[in-house]
């Protein structure tokens, strides 16, 4: 039974955590894809930026969370979201808008976003250094150990405080986005523009406003994902690069342009990763004794080693692009 708990910890919980991060990131990417029709490589660095903003704020006001009993990082999150949203809109105005005005091909916008990525990375590393820093400056990260009331089980189910916040925020974000897109005038205008930009213009929708709103949402979501990941692990300026590929894989799997697909895609990729690096021989341990002699169980039955974790989203990405480029929800292959 310990093995089962091991499975819960290392697959169910870990997969949900990874999946939520990817989901939030992928939603931002897919929204940008659907409105601006290019792959925004700088998204992962926007996530780092959001976390960095939280780090700065937490360093400046370390005691703010104690007053409410909530980690300071969470208290600072809304402000960081606003700052990241502002950054996103600013980047668009300075770098992407002129390119759009020139009518360039999407790949040129991708290169532009690469330039932005490098600039963001350079700036963040310049000010934050390259090492890891904790977002818990004055408070402690709570770790909850749930002992299961089943006999023989010695290992508790472990879940941390930031992970709980992550789940809650993911849910709130997804529901909020759904309501925004399906009920609000602006949200519907966004969907309209994603469907048919010319007709949207002809209906009087102000495309500049929609673009700005898209960046605000993308920036805000990026800040949430980046911050919570940094809270759970640690803040490192290069956390972004390893998120880029899985997030894009998630967005493409879910069907580019479909926010709900991106959420689903995020969890698909997240669970695929955790399932692939999980050492399945642990689960088979209880039955090891009943196996015939000639069948020797290797001690490591993981599909890929943890160092090769990145292969999983890449493999999924290529597989989807080759076999079903429109993704699960039949997005746009623009």
């Amino acid at each position: 039974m310990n093995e089962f708990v091991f499975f819960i910890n290392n697959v169910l919980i870990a997969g949900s955590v990874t999946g939520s991060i990817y989901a939030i990131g992928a939603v931002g990417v897919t929204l940008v894809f659907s409105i601006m029709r290019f792959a925004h490589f700088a998204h992962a660095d926007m996530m780092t930026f959001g976390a960095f903003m939280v780090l700065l704020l937490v360093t400046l006001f370390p005691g703010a969370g104690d007053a409410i009993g909530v980690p300071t990082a969470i208290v600072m999150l809304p402000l960081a979201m606003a700052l990241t949203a502002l950054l996103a809109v600013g980047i668009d105005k300075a770098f992407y808008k002129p390119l759009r005005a020139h009518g360039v091909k999407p790949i040129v916008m991708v290169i532009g976003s690469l330039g932005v990525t490098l600039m963001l990375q350079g700036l963040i590393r310049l000010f934050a250094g390259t090492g890891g820093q904790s977002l818990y400056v004055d408070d402690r990260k709570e770790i909850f150990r749930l002992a299961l009331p089943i006999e023989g089980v010695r290992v508790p189910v472990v879940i941390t405080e930031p992970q709980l916040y992550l789940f809650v925020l993911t849910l709130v974000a997804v529901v909020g986005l759904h309501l925004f897109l399906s009920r609000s005038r602006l949200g519907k205008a966004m969907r309209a523009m994603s469907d048919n930009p010319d007709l949207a213009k002809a209906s009087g929708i102000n495309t500049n406003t929609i673009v700005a709103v898209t960046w605000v949402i993308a920036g805000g979501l990026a800040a949430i994902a980046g911050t919570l990941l940094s809270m759970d692990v640690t803040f490192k300026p290069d956390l972004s690069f390893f998120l880029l590929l899985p997030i894009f894989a998630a967005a493409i799997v879910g069907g580019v342009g479909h926010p709900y697909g991106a959420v689903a895609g995020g969890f698909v990729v997240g669970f695929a990763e955790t399932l692939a690096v999980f050492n399945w021989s642990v689960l088979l341990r209880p039955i090891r004794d009943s196996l015939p002699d000639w069948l020797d169980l290797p001690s490591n039955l993981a599909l890929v080693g943890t160092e090769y974790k990145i292969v999983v989203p890449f493999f999924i990405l290529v597989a989807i692009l080759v076999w079903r480029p429109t993704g699960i929800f039949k997005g746009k292959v623009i």
Partner: protein
Amino acid sequence: MNTNSNNPHRRDDTGATVSTFPARELTLLALLAMAVAGVYLAMGAAYSTRMLVEAACYAILALGLTIQWGYAGQFNAGVMGFVALGGFAAMSFSVPVNEAFWASSLPGELGLVLIYILGAGLIVFAASRLDRLGLPRTLRTVVTVLLALVLYMVVISQFREVTERIEDQVEFVGGLGLPTWTGWIVGGLLAGVIGYFIGHVCLGLRSDYLAIATLGIAEIIKAFLKNSDWLTRGTATVSPLPWPVPGPAEVGFTLSRALYLSITAVIIAVIFLLLHRAYNAPWGRMIRAIRDNEESSAAMGKDINRRRLEIFVLGCILMGIGGAVLGSFNGIFDPQGYLPLNHTFLVLVMVILGGPGNNLGTIFGAVAVYIIWIMSEPLALYVMELAAHVGQANFDWEMPTNLESRALQARVFVIGLLITVVLRFAPKGLLPEKVKHHD
């Protein structure tokens, strides 16, 4: 959009030499020469010659990318991977033989596992063709996938065991002790083969997807090289790597580097000439026809996909060669030293600045950007130290630690800025279709 639909024969396609006096080109060349001279004066001959050799290696990389991007519009965001493969081949072929490894039973075991891998691959491949024997398609897929999973697990655990034994007993498989240039050639071939497989799968994708895919491939290659201690010593690195010319210990830094530079220059010249010949040959004309007007080329029956794949592979080969030459020069194979910034985006800037598809321009761009890149490190450090001192004196700021590594990050910012600025002010001029002069 396209400017060429009316007069495809309007442009002057006579080849590399420009008939009118190239005032602008000469001016830029003169400026570059002055910059190089400046570096020599400031940093000394040994340092500057080393910089030139590295710039020359990057020029080879840039030529590879300019072919892919400039002639075929393929945005390869995974240059780093091919560079690493080149370095790996250089190391593997030129580093001395590990007697202990070959004396033991390990080569046999390794060989056996490799045969298993091959066999498993063939079985899975055969299973995927079962539908030819009448098996319904979904069943075939299920069988293939299951078979692949099981065989994979079996083979991979064997593989892990053998490699662990190698690492335990002899540390790593060692090299082949062959002359360095063999490693360089194999580096190119290895990169080409990997490029072939990637291109086969990914070239049909939309440009941004190709970029993502190649980005991922490069990371996977790097992860493989970094974690296969049995093959590359991983993070423990392999050094020194032998040079094809007398090394610094024998003739001093400057002379040995100058010798290396002459070899590299010869390589570049050969590549340049071959490209020039190819460009004017029927193959080159076909490539240009496809680039200029893809639809009518397809209508005329030219196999576009095949040509595109050829270009991609050719570019990868060049990147492999450049990576090998660079790796040998650096004298060390360190998988962690391969960074997307240093080995992909830097090359991208070189190509963008020099003009995609313009071979001479690309070489120029490579040298120019590399000088900027190298000199920005001492410059950034100087500026940061100045700022820190001023801050300390006037505002009582604490001197941040690791000022040096932070200064290096300024380079990241500068390269990013370069990319965005160049794109901002000449976005359409950088698209391959818009190149009006041919080299």
